[in-house]
């Protein structure tokens, strides 16, 4: 199920490049504020030191599969990269750059995910350096001394592994989040000692902790965090979230709910300060402003029914309840704070494209 969500999101991004995609959210558009995927990924990473590795592996596996599907769909000859390992450096660089730029950089640029460029290539040992500017994963975050773009590290190595049919790994050598001008990745053969060491160091960061309230204020106040703007295509949000759920989906969804709930509890005072009033109205305003969804609320704090329309995590996608786990957790935390009593999720279901959630007091 989660694999279907991932494959559909990739197909949707390709369709967008080919001008063959219809908008799925007619009212609020198919973009969501960067803070949404960032807050989710960082909260999950902060909650569990295994998440960087899991996210990387899932992103790598799904990008590899989808890159293969995409070049096949586009009709790239099967022998296009034949015997790539023997190619002269200049030709290897120009050919790989041509494909990566025309296909995958286009996809990422169209989705406003970032600006992908191959900057250097060596064939023996294989070493591909990539510059990823305007990175959706970390733009506007400055709290770190090391790279934090695990989703993109996995995705980029997965794409290149698929193209040249080799098992590659990558690690980040420079990151916006640690003060870099771009996020730079080194990609090479995963069996090579240099790559193994680089990857292991990268994927086991010391402590991940970001001040999400500071980051959120930038988005709420429309302070640009990058030249591409603060919005990103919903497909990117769906891909990032789905990849956190790919391994051990049931447990990952439960953890997502818990982590979302904690974030929701922390979110309430920030929203109250920003919107200047209290109560559930803040919630509707916030999610609408950041392009997450529109909501109709019914009932009161004894039974609160939310009819969520054009939800960013499920719009135009396969309807998988697991995909909504972080959001429902966040809403549980938020409604608890905004109603002044601990709430619990009583029911959640999709009705057509709408997500229907019912919260009742936990007691």
């Amino acid at each position, binding site marked *: 199920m989660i694999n279907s969500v991932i494959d559909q999101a990739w*197909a949707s991004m*390709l*369709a967008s*490049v*080919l*001008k*063959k995609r219809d908008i799925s959210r007619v009212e609020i558009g198919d973009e969501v504020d960067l803070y949404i995927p960032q807050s989710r990924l960082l909260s999950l990473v902060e909650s569990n030191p295994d998440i960087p590795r899991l996210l990387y592996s899932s992103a790598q596996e799904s990008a590899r599969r989808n890159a293969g599907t995409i070049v*096949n*769909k*586009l*009709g*790239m*000859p099967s*022998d*296009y990269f*034949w*015997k790539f390992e*023997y*190619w*002269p450096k200049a*030709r290897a660089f120009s050919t790989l750059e*041509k*494909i990566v*730029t*025309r296909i995958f*950089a*286009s996809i990422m*640029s169209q989705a406003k995910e970032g600006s992908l460029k191959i900057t250097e290539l060596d064939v023996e040992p294989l070493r591909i350096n990539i510059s990823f500017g305007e990175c959706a994963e970390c733009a506007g975050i400055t709290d770190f001394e090391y790279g934090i773009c695990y989703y993109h590290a996995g995705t980029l190595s997965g794409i290149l592994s698929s193209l040249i049919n080799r098992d590659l790994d990558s690690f980040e050598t420079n990151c916006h989040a640690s003060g870099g001008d771009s996020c730079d990745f080194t990609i090479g053969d995963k069996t090579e000692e240099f790559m193994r060491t680089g990857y292991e160091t990268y994927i086991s960061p010391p402590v991940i902790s970001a001040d999400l309230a500071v980051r959120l204020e930038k988005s709420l106040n429309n302070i640009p965090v990058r030249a591409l703007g603060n919005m990103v295509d919903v497909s990117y949000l769906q891909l990032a979230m789905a990849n956190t759920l790919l391994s051990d989906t049931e447990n990952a969804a439960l953890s997502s709910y818990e982590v979302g709930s904690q974030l929701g509890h922390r979110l309430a005072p920030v929203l109250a300060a920003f919107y200047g009033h209290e109560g559930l109205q803040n919630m509707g305003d916030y999610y609408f402003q950041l392009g997450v969804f529109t909501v109709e609320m019914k009932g009161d704090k004894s039974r609160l029914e939310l009819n969520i329309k054009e939800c960013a995590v499920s719009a135009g996608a396969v309807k998988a309840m697991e995909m909504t786990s972080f959001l429902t957790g966040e809403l549980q935390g938020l409604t608890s704070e905004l109603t002044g009593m601990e709430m619990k999720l009583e029911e959640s279901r999709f009705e057509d494209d709408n997500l229907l959630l019912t919260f009742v007091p936990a007691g």
Partner: protein
Amino acid sequence: MEDKAKILVVCGASNKSLIETMLHSMEYQVIPAESGDEALQRVEDAQPNVVLLDIMMPGLDVFEVIGRLKEDTVAATTPIVMITSAGDVENRLKALEAGVDEFLTSPVDQVEMQVRLNSLLKVNAYNRQLLVYQNDIEAEVARRTQELTRAFEKIKIASLDTVYRLSRAAEYKDEDTGAHVERMSHYSSAIARAMGLDDEFVENILWAAPMHDIGKIGIPDNVLQKPGKLTDKEWEIMRQHTTIGSEILKDADTDFIILAQDIALSHHEKWNGSGYPQGLKGTDIPLAGRIVSLADVFDALTSERPYKKPFPLEKALDIIKEDSGSHFDPDVAEAFLSVEDEIAKELNFWKFMSLEPDSSDSDTDLSNLFGD
């Protein structure tokens, strides 16, 4: 403990404790096994230096155990000692044939056992050294073979790359892009694969096809780049690109350049004999030339030229069908049409690659990309 020689022992109940006590007193590490089956299981992990088997061992027959030990590459070099009763000549002969190295007579004498084991341990140490040496040699041979293969491939592809760039240079002389050679070489390899030709031929044609028009380097620009119709005299000059190409590529000693020479000379020949430069007919035209001829024409039909729009795929395919048996080898045309879907996808790929990333060129039919 690790430095002690390891003796795997399987004895009948009558000998077991005595033998094990003796071995302990001789400072060996004893690996006891209760039966022949257990001995076979333990030998891989424990890697004993000597195996000591009692003819009266429980479980599997002792000769079956010996036979299975000798089938294993590592265990086969481990000396085997068998304990038999005095005068059991028949079993000793059978055991020698099976591969036993030494015998001890029951009841076992400790001094005799020590002397025989010491001698066998030296043999075992030597065997192990030989095995390590043999493995090292094999690994080294494999490594050097891989290096040689790699070096050979690199030299081949480096030289190929140079020629490939020259071919593109020739294309640049009469087109605004060198992409034609890239496209038609992949069409050629797709046809060769569809014809069931071997990987080596497919690879060679992929690399050789781009050189088909290399002779255009020798055609004067006023003919090659003439915007209007060529005169008969100019056509005559133009046709010389086949023979010039062949001259450039002749006397090569690598397969793909030899193939490239065939292609350069014959890619304008026609199945019915009406082509040039030699007017060859049917299978007198080299196979690679027949394949490249079709790939070249198909790419010309589906590409934009200063004087024409690209033909739609269906129209180009109809032309190939119509000209099968006259211009094209019917077998080549049939193979090409059998991979029509693959060719259609490749055609889209080249179109996609030639578009600007932000283009939404309505003439480019990319709708079939979501067909499956």
